[in-house]
């Protein structure tokens, strides 16, 4: 690096720093949450609405998720559609999140909230497990999740189905965004929950075999996929038993893209060529600059 280059970069930095300093001195930090961005968002929303557009909405997984307790463990199921308003943002997103080797969690609601919440609790559970020296219990994960969601008073839009097998057997919980939980043998959540619950209420039996439980969950998610606009695409399953986890993605491609039966393209040579004229275009070189990458 030549000294000339060094001095020029340092001069640039100094002007940047003075600019930054002018910005930061204006308001000292007060402590606690800063709601400056809320004011900014409100102003932006007003400006954007004047032009006629609207702000982008948070992407939510309009969803069907469910879980069932069977003889040896739990089966969790989810669809794979993520929507942004009325458009499908992701046709194959994964809604069954890892919490610990024996505990998995399906998430409905705002996609970012479910993703981050499950990751935070998964990380805390791993540290907790290192401290206790034991495999974590589903009730522990439930407590951590409900206490965090209650703390945020429902502003974290995460509705979860938590299931796993621990030393006390298989457990299944449903966790709502405001922080209430229910411990039940079968649960459904999301916009397609009513369709899925109808299937469960009809065909659930205690102490089912694994194959029957998988079929029941598959049918419940399928009911959500075909009867709810917010759910669609494939069916993911996660079967958790003592010592084994089967993450089946996808279990059922309920909405496979069809194969076109015909084609509007014509083969080359279909249209006869009458005449051929070639015109070269003279382009003038205006400016040439080289930008070197700093690969040091």
């Amino acid at each position: 690096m030549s000294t000339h280059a060094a001095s020029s970069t340092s001069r640039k930095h100094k002007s940047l720093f003075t600019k930054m300093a002018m910005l930061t001195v204006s308001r000292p930090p007060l402590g606690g949450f800063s709601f400056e961005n809320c004011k900014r968002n409100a102003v932006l929303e007003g400006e954007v609405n004047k032009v006629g557009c609207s702000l982008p909405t948070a992407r939510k997984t309009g969803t069907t998720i469910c879980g069932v307790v069977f003889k040896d463990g739990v089966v969790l199921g989810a669809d794979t559609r993520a929507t942004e308003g009325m458009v499908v943002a992701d046709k194959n997103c994964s809604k069954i999140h890892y919490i610990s080797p024996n505990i998995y969690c399906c998430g409905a609601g705002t996609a970012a909230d479910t993703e981050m919440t499950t990751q935070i609790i998964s990380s805390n559970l791993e540290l907790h497990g290192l401290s206790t020296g034991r495999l974590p219990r589903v009730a522990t994960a439930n407590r951590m999740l409900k206490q965090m969601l209650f703390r945020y008073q429902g502003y974290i839009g995460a509705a979860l189905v938590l299931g796993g097998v621990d030393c006390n057997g298989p457990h299944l919980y449903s966790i709502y965004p405001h922080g209430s939980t229910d411990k039940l043998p079968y649960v459904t959540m999301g916009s397609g929950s009513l369709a899925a619950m109808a299937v469960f209420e009809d065909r659930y039996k205690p102490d089912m075999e694994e194959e029957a439980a998988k079929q029941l969950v598959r049918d419940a998610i399928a009911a959500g996929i075909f009867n709810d606009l917010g759910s669609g695409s494939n069916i993911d399953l996660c079967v958790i038993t003592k010592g084994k986890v089967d993450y089946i993605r996808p279990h059922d491609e309920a909405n496979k893209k069809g194969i076109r039966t015909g084609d509007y393209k014509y083969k080359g040579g279909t249209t006869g060529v009458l005449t051929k004229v070639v015109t070269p275009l003279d382009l003038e070189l205006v400016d040439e600059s080289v930008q070197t990458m700093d690969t040091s």
Partner: protein
Amino acid sequence: MLGETGPEWLSEEVKTGTTIIAIEFNGGVVLGSDSRVSAGASVVNRVMNKLSPLHDKIYCALSGSAADAQTIAEMVNYQLDVHSIEIGEDPQVRSAATLVRNISYKYKEELSAHLIVAGWDRRDGGQVFATLNGLLTRQPFAVGGSGSSYVYGFVDAEYRRGMSKEECQQFVVNTLSLAMNRDGSSGGVAYIVTIDEHSTEEKVVLGNNLPTFFDQ
């Protein structure tokens, strides 16, 4: 607080639109609740046990917002455990009710849950305390939840002092059945808990075994 509200079912808080009742008899208490939990127009849990243990011989009945009520009950359960280890004996029902009242009063603007605390202790026998809105009052019996409005007349007319344990249990079951029939937010099965000096007995009365009245 922020501009947009998001999807409706997320903002519709999960409520235990409920009927809860607790009544004292000579030597113990009987608590009763329905089992319906609703989020908007949808029933999300039809078998929830709203009688939550705070200690071996002290229970509380939950009503209002499910998240708030569950959180209060779990916090007081923890505080009572610590308190009973500190004093070296079983806690008094009045202590449990005071702990619930302290939380309900301090956060009365933020919370929307009502807990009825009832139990048995050696000093004063069976006791029922109401903690609505942060007050603390001992009563012979207490009703709460959205379904209670429909049965005030019934409980006021039918309650007599000096009822036996079986009469109290029947009184609780009758009240719950009437309220569940009239209140849309109450339903499912009836949970009954009887606490006395010797035991704490939990019972479930399924829908078809509930007493029927005129017009059913």
